[in-house]
């Protein structure tokens, strides 16, 4: 019994893991997960944190675009009745309500100019992205047109705000498709090895040779231009890097003793792959995912710039940049959309780099 007491006495001390004393004390009860350590490390990288906030801001712009730039007011009182035209448009699109017949074609701006609205609150940018105003075409930044207008009088600021929707969704969805395919095929190849690995990796090599850009142009030529085709085409052609990366990681993780331990317990392969292998192999793939978002945004912008991208009625950063080609004196048409693309690509790259540093155990102090 005495011997047992000695064994039970705690003689080992927890390693500090590079956390300060107060942090160590505060986590006595609940353990610190790997991801909370990564978060802690990521927060220390100022550039990555600023990029993170910029991305959050861009997402905010994209989500609230209709409330920031719209040809209809947020709130108006007309003929004694109160209207919320922007919200009303949302409800109409879901089929909950309908404009009354006399209001369906109402030009709110004209009504406001004529002083018929008793009270009105406009959105911060009082123009929609597709609102054509031929009188004010190619106007430099002035008055209501904060960033000027393009060749057919569309407001640039409104275009940039609404264009962020396309750019961000292309980035996330294309990178998401690529990640899912890459993780599935890569982990299967790495875990099972042998002939399965051989087949998948040869397939990857075939896919690598497909030129994404020309594939998309071909798809657009055959099926017509749509944002969904572009997302899918970028996603289905850019997963190869992710697959190779995760295969390599899985090959490494597969030989760790905790996988042997899981085997000795008798756990089924599916459970071993999803619970034990992928969580340990995914970190570097997330880094490449951040870079992939930037790449997809750039590809979409390039396609739209060439006019192959989205349909003519959809405004994207790339299509706005395209406008600058026809009007070389209108500097604002080149500078502002170009700057937005630049900002988006740089921030995602900085986030990717910050993630890579945060995930690197050697840099942890």
């Amino acid at each position, binding site marked *: 019994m005495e011997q047992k007491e*000695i*064994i039970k006495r705690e003689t080992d001390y*927890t390693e500090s893991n590079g956390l300060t004393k107060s942090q160590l004390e505060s986590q006595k009860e609940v*353990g610190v997960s*790997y991801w909370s350590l990564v978060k802690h490390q990521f927060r220390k990288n100022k550039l990555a944190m600023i990029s993170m906030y910029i991305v959050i801001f861009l997402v905010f712009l994209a989500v609230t675009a209709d409330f920031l730039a719209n040809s209809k007011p947020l709130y108006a009182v007309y003929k004694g009745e109160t209207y919320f035209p922007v919200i009303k448009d949302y409800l109409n699109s879901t089929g909950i309500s309908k404009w009354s017949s006399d209001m369906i074609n109402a030009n709110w701006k004209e009504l406001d100019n004529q002083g018929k609205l008793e009270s009105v609150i406009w959105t911060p940018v009082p123009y929609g992205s597709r609102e054509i105003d031929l009188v004010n075409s190619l106007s430099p930044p002035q008055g209501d047109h904060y960033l000027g207008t393009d060749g057919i009088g569309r407001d640039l600021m409104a275009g940039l705000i609404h264009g962020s929707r396309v750019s961000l969704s292309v980035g996330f969805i294309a990178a998401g498709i690529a990640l899912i395919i890459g993780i599935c095929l890569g982990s299967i190849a790495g875990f099972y090895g042998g002939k399965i690995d051989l087949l998948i990796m040869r397939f990857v090599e075939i896919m690598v040779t497909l030129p994404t850009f020309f594939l998309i142009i071909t798809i657009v030529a055959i099926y017509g231009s749509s944002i969904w085709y572009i997302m899918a085409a970028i996603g289905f052609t850019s997963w190869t890097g992710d697959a190779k990366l995760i295969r390599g990681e899985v090959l490494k993780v597969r030989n*760790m*003793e905790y996988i042997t331990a899981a*085997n000795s*317990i008798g756990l089924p392969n599916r459970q071993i792959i999803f619970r034990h292998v992928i969580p340990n192999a995914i970190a570097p793939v997330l880094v490449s995912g951040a870079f992939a978002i930037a790449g997809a945004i750039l590809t979409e912008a390039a396609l739209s710039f060439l006019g192959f991208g989205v349909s003519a009625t959809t405004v994207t950063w790339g299509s706005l940049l395209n406008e600058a080609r026809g009007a070389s004196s209108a500097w604002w048409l080149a500078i502002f959309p170009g700057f937005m693309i630049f900002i988006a690509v740089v921030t995602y790259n900085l986030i990717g780099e910050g993630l890579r540093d945060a995930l690197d155990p050697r840099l942890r102090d």
Partner: protein
Amino acid sequence: MSDVLLEVNGLKKYFPIKTGLFSKTVGNVKAVDDVTFKIKRGETLGLVGESGCGKTTVGRALLRLIEPTAGEVIFDGKNITNMPLKELKQYRKQMQIIFQDPYSSLNPRITVGGMLTEILKFHEIAEGDAAEKRVEQLLDTVGLRKIYARRYPHEFSGGQRQRIGIARALSVEPKFIVCDEPVSALDVSIQSQIINLLQDLQKDFDITYLFISHDLSVVEHISDRVCVMYLGQLVEMADSKELYKNPKHPYTQALLSAVPVPDPKNKSKRIILTGDVPSPANVPTGCYFHPRCPKVFGDCPVIHPVLGGNEEHKQSCLLYPESYPKSIKAA
């Protein structure tokens, strides 16, 4: 119920060497070459040998973590060598393993409690609150605090991690545990704690061990019987006390002479082995040990000895007439 828990007959594990474009097999690494032994219920069998002699492969092959090339493993009267994986599941519950490296044997992304609960749930031992209680009980058994269940492996020291590894092995209430060098990665002071813990658990839960190690003094302390391995084969097998007092095989004698004795006046002659361990892909003729053996003689490069002798002490060395193969003995 027979008193033999595990029987290993003619176990072989060859790793093919493949080269070229079409992966042609040009040879085999004979990691384990015809190993036969028995383990009785409740005893500890030590398995010692140099690095690369196939100790670990034996341990893993008999748990079928590596599929053996040939031979059979009989556990509790049942041949598990060719058993389909579905049927094997219930035997996984009875045979467990403790690993050498406590740093790579725990999944860094799962809490200790999460890992143990997963096992308890999978083997339908306990779920929900009952599982939580069982986890606390297991941690208590291996001398860790209950609150550690919510922590991640990187928050523990090597000794604590090894205790967690032991708790994992115990969670399914096994009859037999392969201890694959469980203390070689630990500090000496922690080593003794873990060894004592293993011995206590053996008493409390009636567990049989196969204790693999290259540390002869540790093996002497914990084992009832000891097997000595060289190049994938057993060269000597005896009761622990007998082996350390009266080693018969020149290889065992050389190993034992290398164990440091904490007595400055003791100047016993150390037997220095010359040359390197031959590659298991290209083994010497006759006795595998003859190129390095200090007592080599005429028959050694020609005749391959077999494990012979009485039940208490067997050896495979041509210095002893009982080690000659039967066919040659007759001649």
